[in-house]
């Protein structure tokens, strides 16, 4: 009897011990986790913070070792120069127009194609889908020059007589490629849409069919409203990547500074070779100007991201990125 009692208390004590240890471990882990995440977040945000603070800094502050992040002499001079040099309002609107055009067309084409892949079983479907993945794997540098030449001397693949039309410098190369689901990272969007439509219940479509809805009506009235999360994510990604893109913009526009990314590129190149005379420290001043230019370039995306943040991050899990 006594032994049994003793055993019981020891067991209870051990259990209590284990529980306390468990709790300690949990607290310890959450501490470690906080430290790690805070450090990594700081590392990610650090370049942005530096860019921002040094873009509003007077150049003298860069040599003042007591200035760490907060500028002592606040100035908007760099922003004024960058704003005027890049012709910001005009280039911003041009870029916005191009980006919206491309992302809406990409959204439309990849939704249609994704719907075809996700909801229909036709012959050769797997082969066609493999081709979609192939477009993702082949680096765009490989078809860069043929694309350039085809758009420089555009003859609709032999339908128009020589010498063909020069489409470079216009929106047309962007429109044509994104309309036919061949734009920037378009294969990924098709993949996302396909997986999403695959996951939609068959009964929805059957019900619509019994009610006598045509295939297109089912698509527009039943499937599209249900696909909002996937549509949002594709649109946002397409927008961000097109805005940030330099490859296709450089390839299809080539010269001029009509678009924000090209204007920023020219701006940076200009001040690397022509240091502004107004300053005693040309190199440092150039860096400050660059930072102001970059902030102006990134500002629209940052604002968009802050507004749509939840859609970017949270909805990916619901869009069937996971097959």
């Amino acid at each position, binding site marked *: 009897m006594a032994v049994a009692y003793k055993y019981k208390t020891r067991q209870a004590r051990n259990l209590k011990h284990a529980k306390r240890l468990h709790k300690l471990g949990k607290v310890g882990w959450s501490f470690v986790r906080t430290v790690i995440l805070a450090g990594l977040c700081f590392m990610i945000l650090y370049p942005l913070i530096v860019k921002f603070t040094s873009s509003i800094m007077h150049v003298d502050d860069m040599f003042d070792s007591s200035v760490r992040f907060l500028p002592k002499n606040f100035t908007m001079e760099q922003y004024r120069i960058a704003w005027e040099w890049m012709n910001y309002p005009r280039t911003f609107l041009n870029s916005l127009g191009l980006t919206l055009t491309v992302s809406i067309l990409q959204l439309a084409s990849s939704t249609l194609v994704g719907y*075809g892949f996700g909801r229909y079983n*036709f012959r050769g*479907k797997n082969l066609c889908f493999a081709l979609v993945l192939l477009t993702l794997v082949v680096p765009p540098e490989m078809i860069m020059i043929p694309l350039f030449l085809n758009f420089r001397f555009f003859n609709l*693949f032999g339908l128009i007589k*020589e*010498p063909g039309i020069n489409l470079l410098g216009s929106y047309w190369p962007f429109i044509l490629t994104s309309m036919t689901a061949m734009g920037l990272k378009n294969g990924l969007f098709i993949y996302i849409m396909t997986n999403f439509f695959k996951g939609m219940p068959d009964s929805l479509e059957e019900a619509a069919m019994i009610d006598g809805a045509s295939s297109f009506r089912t698509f527009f009235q039943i499937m599209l409203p249900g696909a909002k999360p996937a549509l949002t994510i594709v649109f946002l990604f397409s927008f961000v990547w097109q805005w940030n893109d330099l490859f296709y913009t450089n390839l299809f526009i080539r010269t001029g500074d009509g678009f924000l990314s090209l204007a920023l590129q020219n701006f940076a190149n200009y001040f690397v070779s022509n240091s502004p005379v107004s300053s005693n420290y040309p190199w440092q001043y150039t860096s400050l100007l660059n930072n102001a230019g970059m902030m102006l*370039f990134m500002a629209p995306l940052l604002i968009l991201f802050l507004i749509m943040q939840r859609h970017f991050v949270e909805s990916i899990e619901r869009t069937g990125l996971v097959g």
Partner: protein
Amino acid sequence: MKKFKLGLMEKRNLKGYLYISPFLIGFLCFFLIPIVQAVVFSFSELKIVPTGYTTTFVGLDNYHRILFVDPDFVPILTNTIINTIVDIPAILIFSFFIAVVLNQRFIGRSFVRMVFFMPVILSAGVVIKMEMNDIMNQAMVQEASFMMGGEYFLNLLLQLRLPAGFIQYIVAVVNRIPLVIEASAIPILIFLAGLQSVPTDLYEAADVEGITGWERFWMITFPLVSPMILVNAVYIIIDSFTSYRNEMVVFIADNAWSRGGYGVSVAMSMLYFLAIAVILGIIVGVFSKRVVYIK
């Protein structure tokens, strides 16, 4: 009756071609034809004249020039490949770890998730190009990685009298930390999505059986998320091979517009693509046998 229904379904399925027709047209016009042209160009000398362009067949000259005459191509290519191969495990492990952490519940989780996604927004082609040209900016990035204790760490390693090669490797990895974090943004999201798709009843059943946290991770979470490892490995390779941080990409573009000419540049991208294809093939081959699928 049955036959009629089959016919109906077949008729319905024909509409699938209609839906995917934009892709088929695009694939033909802006992918297949350009690729065939690229293959032709890589074996010829290309000249642009006002009315179009002319090609003269030169055989393997372009390839010969790249591999045996050009002093830069081979080192840059091997460098790029080595960097990518070194980065893949780092990015995979890092993003998996972060995804597991971000999948737990804690205060400020959505903020942290947002921050980890930020590099996608911030890594614009122009911005990367400018940062690479801007000495001040490069110094800042270096500083950031050393601010994380890199300097102390280096001193520690030196005091431990470890072999120099090992220290060099560690320093190289530490210097690449910002790049690894930047490249992890999308892989983290993909892993998160994978983690959330693991059915909860498996965990419940395992808890009833009295599983420890360690076993829970290695026997349930890890195998079920393993398809995502393959997806991510492929994504990381493609992403790094087309990024503006990639020397090779810049080199090919340089060649096209100024240095060697179109033919040489196309031939370079051919070899480059072959290298990517081989690496992708090896990785897919190695991973796909070990990946667990449940349907």
